[in-house]
């Protein structure tokens, strides 16, 4: 029996509608997730007395550290700084990525000229650009925003570029024959047709913005989650390092679900 047949048989037996089945499945997944987390943390906690504290810390220590930084308020300025860098970097990088991707995607010659430049810059590990950004932009917000923007730019740029390149050429010329001008074609055909690729790029770029900001903070800074982690590490405060990572993970999860929410809304 195939799996669909099995599902069918199961649904007949329990006489649940497909929607009820789906929500039941979702509930099981969530219960599983929570159980997995609890078991994982429990094992970690139980094992921690036997492990090297400076390497593994323990869930209790990490929690204590987190609560402390919340209570003393030391977490918030760092969190706020990183969020600011992410937001600014994302907006600038995404906008530039869409514009440049669209231009290069619809102009083969310009694309050909700039291709080596793009590949060369894309190929550099972005962290290597960090010192340059510091020289150019100082040690405050700016170099981190630029770092996030550069990383976001490439993700969105390539998505847009390929989205535009993949527009069906036969469709384009057929539409053009109808008397639709090149400018109108860009607006009415190429852009909408590349839109799903652009959205995918925007989605993939959200966690990249986080990476850019934190990487930037780790080069030179006196604020932000990256700084917080770095500083804890220099103090051999392993629980502090894990606490910072924990906050980053929560941010990544929240960003991801926000993006999913938004793309769900797009599909209506």
């Amino acid at each position, binding site marked *: 029996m195939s799996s669909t047949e099995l599902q069918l048989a199961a649904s007949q037996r329990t006489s649940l509608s497909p929607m009820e089945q789906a929500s039941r499945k979702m509930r099981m997944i969530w219960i599983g997730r929570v159980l997995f987390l609890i078991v994982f943390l429990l094992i970690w906690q139980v094992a921690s007395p036997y492990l090297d504290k400076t390497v593994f810390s323990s869930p209790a220590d990490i929690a204590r550290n987190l609560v402390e930084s919340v209570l003393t308020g030391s977490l918030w300025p760092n969190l706020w700084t990183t969020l600011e860098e992410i937001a600014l970097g994302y907006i600038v990088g995404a906008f530039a990525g869409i514009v440049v991707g669209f231009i290069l*995607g*619809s*102009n*083969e010659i310009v694309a050909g000229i700039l291709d080596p430049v793009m590949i060369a810059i894309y190929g550099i590990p972005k962290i290597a650009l960090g010192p340059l950004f510091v020289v150019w932009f100082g040690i405050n917000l700016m170099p981190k925003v630029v770092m996030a923007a550069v990383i976001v730019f490439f993700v969105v740029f390539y998505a847009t570029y390929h989205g535009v*390149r993949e527009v*069906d*050429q*036969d*469709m*384009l*010329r*057929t*539409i*053009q*024959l*109808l*008397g*639709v*001008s*090149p400018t*109108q*074609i860009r607006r*009415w*055909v190429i852009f*909408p*047709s590349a839109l799903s690729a652009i959205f995918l790029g925007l989605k993939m770029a959200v966690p990249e913005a986080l990476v850019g900001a934190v990487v930037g903070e780790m080069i030179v800074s006196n604020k932000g989650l990256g700084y917080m982690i770095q500083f804890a590490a220099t103090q051999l405060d392993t629980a502090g390092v894990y606490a910072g990572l924990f906050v980053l993970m929560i941010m990544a999860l929240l960003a991801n679900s926000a993006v999913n929410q938004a793309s769900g809304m797009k599909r209506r």
Partner: protein
Amino acid sequence: MCVMWENNSLAKRSDLNDLKKDRTSIGHVSTVFNDTSSYKYQAGSGGIRLEGVSKWFYRSQGEKVVALSQIDLEIPKGAFVSLVGPSGCGKSTILNCIAGFQYPDAGKVIFEGKEIRGLNVGIGYMTQKDYLLPWRDVLDNVWLPLQARGIPTKEGKQRALEYIKRVGLEGFEHNFPRELSGGMLKRAAMARTLVFHPSTLLMDEPFGNLDAQLKLQLQRELLRIWHQEKQTVIFVTHDLEEAIALSDMVVVLSGRPSSVKQVIHVDLPRPRDPISIRFEPEFQRLHKELWSLIDVTLEVDHEFH
């Protein structure tokens, strides 16, 4: 991508004038059948001419496939011409050359006195694939050519609705292409092609996958519109009866490398009714003649599209 940047020297903005002129003519569809005097095309004035057109392609293994070999063909202005021939013989390629989608490897295509270089913007080409925009509903797809010409929205949409009605898609104007059947997509594409009154119509198997009844209905509608607007029509079909019922000329192509095997002139009275015309003895005779020509060529090609 280069397609978009090609020069538009062939763009005929005079179709704006056509639109204005025709705006009045839409209202009285029913009177067309009384008009028997002016249906005849005028030979030798501004039609389409293929002069020794050859076209070849290279298969991925490097093997050369000659699709068209030395095609000579004269299509008078205002004539309704059908192209028939085995699958893969190059019928679509001929239309592509006239539309400027492809260039002949030898010979040339003369369109209204000028050699075609670049896209032949402003002609109506109903391609085998519909190329409707998936993010626009039927109404907005049909409206597109009018929107592009800057016709006031209300007026443009009104006209689009008119043509949607004509192809029998009334009630589907707010459906998206993904919600339509194959036959409905073809009809929407047909409406989009006709709505801007192109003076030349290329139609590539437009009624290919329609049921018999709908096909007859649309043939009738097409003839009606043709009588009104007197376009030059090049109509590719596999249906020999359809070819005779609609056309002034049926061009029979041989299998690859294809050339013009024979041109049959259809001297049936106009205006015609595509159904009752089938019972004329002359129709039967032509039908027999066509079959005798096709029979041989059918065996030549084993390629199916």
